[in-house]
């Protein structure tokens, strides 16, 4: 069961940032509408100006909460501020163990840590495409000794947890979304994560997703994510999802549901 949870959580890193239904744009969900995916967080339109999201499965082992608040338009761009707080310690201590699925060496006890991120999102429709620019600051606070040898040196994971070792980081990115028919949409994005001063100080993530909208309340996505970056051992790149024992990339498949609360 623990193994299943781990694989699910790692896989959700791949899917978690999908932007369909404008998850990562400056646009908010309509009031009382919720959306959830196999790997995507639960999002809820709390009011016309506030949207919040949590990852239900992560929540019990890695408490997390994201709040998005709409802001005044700037130069014709819809704008929003997004604020994220996350407490990864319980999950990290679950996987700091001896034996199979010991992802962190049992030598290390992870201290209480808090991750805080603030992002600014700006979206605009240009030439038939929804374009979103985002940038922000990440802070990682460790309330105790965090051993630099306890990093998880894997694509997607290293640079997300790197902020706790570096205490701060920056992120920025661009998303482009276009509906090519009533039922089919395409999303492409590029995101840069920078951790100045850390050994392995950047990663660039690119995603391409094809969406099929069955209805207003259900869609299926497929595509890939490509990660290139610097790690403690040097530069590396990986096309995801990747199945180790088959030594092959497979297309990601995500199902997402939505409803409006009556």
């Amino acid at each position, binding site marked *: 069961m623990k193994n299943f949870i781990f694989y699910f959580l790692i896989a959700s890193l791949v899917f978690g940032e999908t932007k369909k239904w404008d998850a990562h744009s400056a646009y908010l969900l309509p009031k009382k509408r919720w959306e959830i995916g196999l790997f995507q967080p639960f999002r809820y339109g709390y009011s016309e100006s506030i949207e919040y999201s949590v990852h239900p499965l992560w929540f019990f082992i890695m408490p997390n909460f994201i709040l998005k608040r709409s802001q005044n338009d700037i130069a014709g761009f819809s704008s929003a501020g997004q604020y994220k707080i996350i407490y990864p310690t319980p999950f990290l201590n679950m996987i700091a163990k001896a034996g199979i699925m010991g992802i962190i060496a049992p030598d290390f006890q992870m201290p209480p840590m808090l991750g805080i991120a603030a992002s600014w999102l700006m979206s605009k429709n240009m030439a038939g495409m929804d374009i979103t620019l985002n940038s922000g600051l990440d802070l990682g606070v460790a309330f105790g000794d965090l051993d630099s040898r306890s990093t998880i040196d894997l694509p997607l994971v290293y640079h997300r947890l790197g902020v706790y070792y570096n205490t701060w980081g920056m992120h920025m990115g661009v998303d482009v979304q276009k509906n090519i028919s009533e039922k089919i949409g395409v999303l492409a994005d590029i995101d840069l994560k920078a951790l100045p001063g850390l050994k392995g100080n950047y990663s660039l993530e690119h995603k391409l997703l094809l969406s099929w909208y069955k209805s207003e309340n259900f869609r299926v996505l497929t595509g890939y994510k490509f990660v290139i970056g610097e790690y403690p051992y040097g530069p590396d790149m990986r096309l995801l999802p990747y199945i180790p024992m088959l030594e*092959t990339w497979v297309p990601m498949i995500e199902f997402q549901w939505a409803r409006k609360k009556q």
Partner: protein
Amino acid sequence: MKKLLNILGMLLFFGCEPFVTEFKDSSDVVMYEASTKSNATYDNGNIKVVTWNIRFGIARFPFFGDSCGNDVILDDDTIEKNMAAIADSLDAIDADIVLLQEMDVSSKRTGYMDQVQYLLDHTNLNYGCYASMWKSDFIPSDGIGRINAGNAILSKYELTDVERIQLRLRTDQDVLTQYFYLRRNIVKSKIPALTQGAKDFYAVDIHATAFATDDTKQQHIDKYVETLGEIHSSGDYFVTGGDLNSVPPGSVTDFCLNDMCDGDDYHTNQAEEFHKEGSYFENFDGEPDILLPLYEAYDSAIDSDDANLPIHLTHGPSTSYKMNEIKYDRKLDYLFTNGIWENTSSKTHQAAWELSDHLPVSAVLNVVGE
């Protein structure tokens, strides 16, 4: 659309390196050179050789995998200090050819230090080759993480015609364990500067299985004997050695109680395993005499009659010196040649016991003694 397919093709090519590297029966190795080479010209004199399993520079650190320890990742400063001490020992031995096992070149557990390059840059050795036996982007067990460990040959003289020879995988493991497990090998190199008349000169390095309970060890030794036989039958010279993880004929074969950790139970009906993996040397018929073909066919640096003497023991579990005051209690490391070793020059360097759980063995090849 064509552009998109081209981009996807490039991503597939560059982004899909194997997660775990598997090897063909015969494959190339990674070549190295010292950043600054020392002057070394072969003067037709004798050739000194040493073999040493350096335990990836963690000395007697209580590593979880091969001792009674619980630790996995040593700090960078201590690794650097250990590697400096190993480099000093190699310089003191002053061998022409160094056969090394358990070298890390990019492993989480040793701070991603390239230990082959380090030793070339901190000794009087100039050339090296490296063959990985364990290469994975991530081992999801015990916090091992990324690993690249293997065998290396270092030399004062240039190495050519280098080959990695795959040894059979263990068959006593489930598929998932085997996928993430070691792929042991023999690494073979020609050393043109040491050519003796019409005879080419080869160095051959091996690290045979330690923990298999099936006949994998027999398969490894058979492949080793076959490899050496091919060189010998071609009329060429070789010096060879390594960690054979086998005891000499006539040795004690059961070290389970020596290696027993707190809470372990062996040799009882209640024991989960009757014998401890890696500590018992009679897993199959003939294992106690598994090295006889080597002793019979070639010259051993330490004669078989002397191999079990205390002064020639080469291995002790890393923490046993703390538990049972055992620094070394068995011989697992060997040197052989199809030439002749200088009678009195072979030595087991037991003073280096603190630098690894294996001890270096050196010998001098008598080039004119044939």
